[in-house]
């Protein structure tokens, strides 16, 4: 063994790269936590603001019964009728709505359906979208092309209109809280599934070409195993981002549905969009207190969600991250999304021309966006 050098320490350490070869704990590797840890300066501030707003939203939704002074459909306290459109007072801190509800209570309770819609819509769409994207991207072929065209077509259709149609189909307009939530959620997921599909599919197409997938094929892994063990988990990189952006889209779509008369029945739940749309005529009559609280609630929630989403995006993209390490210039194929749609931010590279080569690639290319 004289001539064969043993693995010597200097070499090992010198090439360990900037990442310390230490096990980072699971907690620290969780998406958002990891992002907070790696962010700095303004980027961190924006992320933290987003997280705080998001937490406030979640806490409000969870503890609405404790936080709200009255029930969402309460018209009177004791024997005293609140009355309609009463200005803020000691009894009703933010006044009452045209329907005679307490504005503050409804604004607090309103976090609930918004939250539920988000959760249900995202759960419904993420599984379907990811599964379809995985299968479609992995196997390719005609099924893939057809799915891509369908997804693109649905993507092209104004989501709000689709939401209305689906809302009508599903429940004939909303009634109970769950009916309303489900209708909004299902209609949203119709619009969101194509987004998850596109993103995951694009990632799968990218990951599929990676050497570790090839190496799995070489050792003879079956398709299921490759998809499940190697491709899927490596294709979920952009999901947190799309997820938060979709959440804000969900809140806005719910508001839009409310405006167009498809909000949740006020005695079933408090719905910001519904309340906001009801208060539009108050605004022109100088009654500000009915419109501002639900409006601000919507804006802040969307702001929080979007800030988190954008920050995740910036941090995931080495080109956008502040103070990235020099070696971090790994050529990720950066798929990012804009609110309401998915976008490529790909730096035009040599490889993109190859994608324009033929019909398959046309689809590939679109799938990226």
């Amino acid at each position, binding site marked *: 063994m004289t001539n064969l050098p043993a693995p010597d320490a200097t070499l090992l350490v010198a090439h360990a790269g900037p990442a310390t070869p230490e096990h980072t704990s699971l907690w620290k590797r969780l998406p958002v936590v990891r992002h907070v840890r790696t962010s700095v300066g303004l980027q961190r501030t924006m992320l933290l603001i987003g997280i705080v707003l998001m937490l406030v939203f979640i806490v409000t939704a969870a503890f609405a019964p404790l936080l709200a002074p009255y029930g969402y459909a309460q018209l009177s306290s004791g024997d005293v009728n609140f009355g309609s459109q009463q200005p803020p007072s000691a009894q009703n801190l933010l006044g009452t709505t045209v329907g005679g509800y307490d504005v503050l209570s409804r604004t607090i309770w309103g976090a609930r359906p918004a939250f539920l819609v988000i959760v249900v819509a995202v759960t419904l769409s993420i599984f379907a979208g990811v599964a379809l994207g995985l299968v479609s991207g992995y196997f390719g072929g005609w099924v893939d092309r057809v799915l891509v065209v369908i997804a693109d077509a649905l993507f092209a259709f104004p989501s709000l209109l689709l939401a209305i149609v689906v809302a009508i189909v599903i429940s004939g307009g909303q009634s109970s809280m769950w009916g309303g939530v489900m209708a909004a959620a299902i209609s949203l997921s119709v619009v969101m599934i194509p987004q998850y599909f596109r993103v995951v599919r694009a990632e799968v197409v990218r990951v599929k070409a990676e050497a570790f997938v090839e190496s799995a094929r070489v050792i003879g892994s079956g398709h299921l195993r490759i998809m499940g063990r190697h491709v899927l988990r490596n294709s979920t990189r952009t999901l947190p981002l799309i997820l938060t952006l979709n959440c804000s889209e969900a809140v806005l779509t719910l508001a839009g549905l409310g405006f167009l008369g498809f909000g949740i029945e006020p005695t079933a739940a408090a719905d910001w969009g519904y309340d906001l749309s009801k208060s539009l005529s108050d605004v022109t009559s100088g009654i500000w207190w009915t419109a501002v609280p639900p409006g601000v609630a919507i804006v802040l929630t969307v702001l929080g969600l979007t800030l988190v989403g954008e920050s995740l995006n910036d941090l995931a993209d080495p080109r956008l991250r502040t103070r990235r390490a020099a070696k971090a210039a790994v050529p990720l194929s950066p798929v990012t999304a804009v609110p309401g749609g998915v976008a490529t931010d790909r730096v035009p590279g040599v490889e993109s021309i190859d994608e324009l080569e033929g*019909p398959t690639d046309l689809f590939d290319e679109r799938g990226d966006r």
Partner: protein
Amino acid sequence: MTNVVDITNLHVSFATDAGTVRAVEGVTLQVAAGEVLAIVGESGSGKTVTARSILGLLPETALSSGTVMLTRKDGSATHDIVTLRGSDLRDVRGRDAAMVFQEPSTALNPVFPVGWQIAEGLRAHRKLSDKDARTQAIDVLRLVGIPDPEHRVDHYPHQFSGGQKQRIVIAQALVLDPGLIIADEPTTALDVTVQAEILDLLRRLPQEFGSAIVLITHNMGVVADLADRVAVMFNGEIVEQADVRTLFSSPQHPYTQRLLDAVPRVGGRRLRDRVRVADELEAMVVDESATPVVEASDLRIVYPGRLRQPSFTAVDGVNLAIRPGEVLGLVGESGSGKTTIGRAIAGLTPISGGSLKVHGVEMLDVKERVFRPVRKRIGFVFQDPATSFNPLLTIAQCVAEPMVVHGLAPNPEEARPRVDELMEAVQLPKAFGDRFPHELSGGQRQRASLARALILGPELLIADEPTSALDVSVQARVLDLFARLQAELGFACLFISHDLAVVDLLAHRIAVLHRGVLVEEGTGDEVLGAPKHPYTQRLLASLPVPDPIEQAARRETWRNLRAHG
């Protein structure tokens, strides 16, 4: 002679997430006018950072101290770059010193014509009409050897070949007539044959334009070919500076010695011989009569064309055989079809014609079901160790994967003893099994990759450029290990590389591929010692050898060959 650049006690550190990284520590360096200084050293030793400091091109997170005095070519002005800011700094950039980047394809803006891009540098420093700018651009394009420059000046980067792109990048630097050209690995991204051309171009710059060159490279052959003086960097410091001949003949610093020792040479001592001597292994005799593990006859592989694109024949009528225990080296320039053949043998790319038998299974129209049992007997080592591991699995899980897939272990944990065994065989500490791929260095990852390929005890290993992504010194270790394991385990191997020297180290026989056609095959001595095919000759001649004197001679041969070829 005056110094174009005079660096004294340069320190550079970076603020990163993980704290401060010291990249350069107390570098002192001078480059005289018209001189070619090569900076060598292992990856991460601070070469690029030093070079960029000369132009003040460090990112905002960098903190530098010391002085970098840069003198204009005509000697009219000298500036300390470290303290220079704003428009003063811009004034110096490009005019006093210009940079040639490593990747020509990323250094050129894809959406502007090259002429415009060349003129941009001119426009940044003086007012001139579009017409003048264009004339100058054409002139400089002609100078760097772009044919038909009047016409090509309006072309876009993607319309040029890689070598031409690098010429354009050099033209961009030249057009401002700087006193110093900094070339950071200018040929790493290029094929050997193209590299030779670019080196030829670079070599003429000092003589004909009087520009000094700071050349950063990993390739000791390039250093031998081009440099007047060499600075060796290690861990952010310059550990040795010497005249090129001195350095090659009598390296002083241990690191330099190790570095030079690690460089593979064509016709040098074969690794497999070394291994045998060291471990007293039996010389492995390849049984010529045994049934080949891989047998290709008239193999054709065609990539189907799409949408009015003709289909592309990547491998055209190749005959080859690999016998048990034999290492077949496959060389050829980029795009010649090496990988395609390797993938076909591993069943990753379907073949379109001829016959390819792998472990007796005919690969033409083979069914996965039929081929699956054969997969157990094939190992594959990929080029880039960084991407060939699933980033979410630990090394042990990755290495155990073949056993789980083939039902030899119910889960990665059960396979652990065997995994540890192999980790030991590839000289990795067992504990590394619990790390994630990104927590290993490139060389370590490639060892792990080898372990994975060998875990099922394959009779055939396909290694596609297993070391080309690695540093010279790391490469040497991996190759050593490879040779040792091959000698010990006696698997047959298809060893793919574009580096003749590497192939020569390991292979029993060498096959040379040129545009999908096998042009020459034989033992290392036959093919590399006395190449018959002109392509092989040219290939060999374009390979710079890490010896300044020998390289000077080879350069002549190459020029002649090119003149006639």
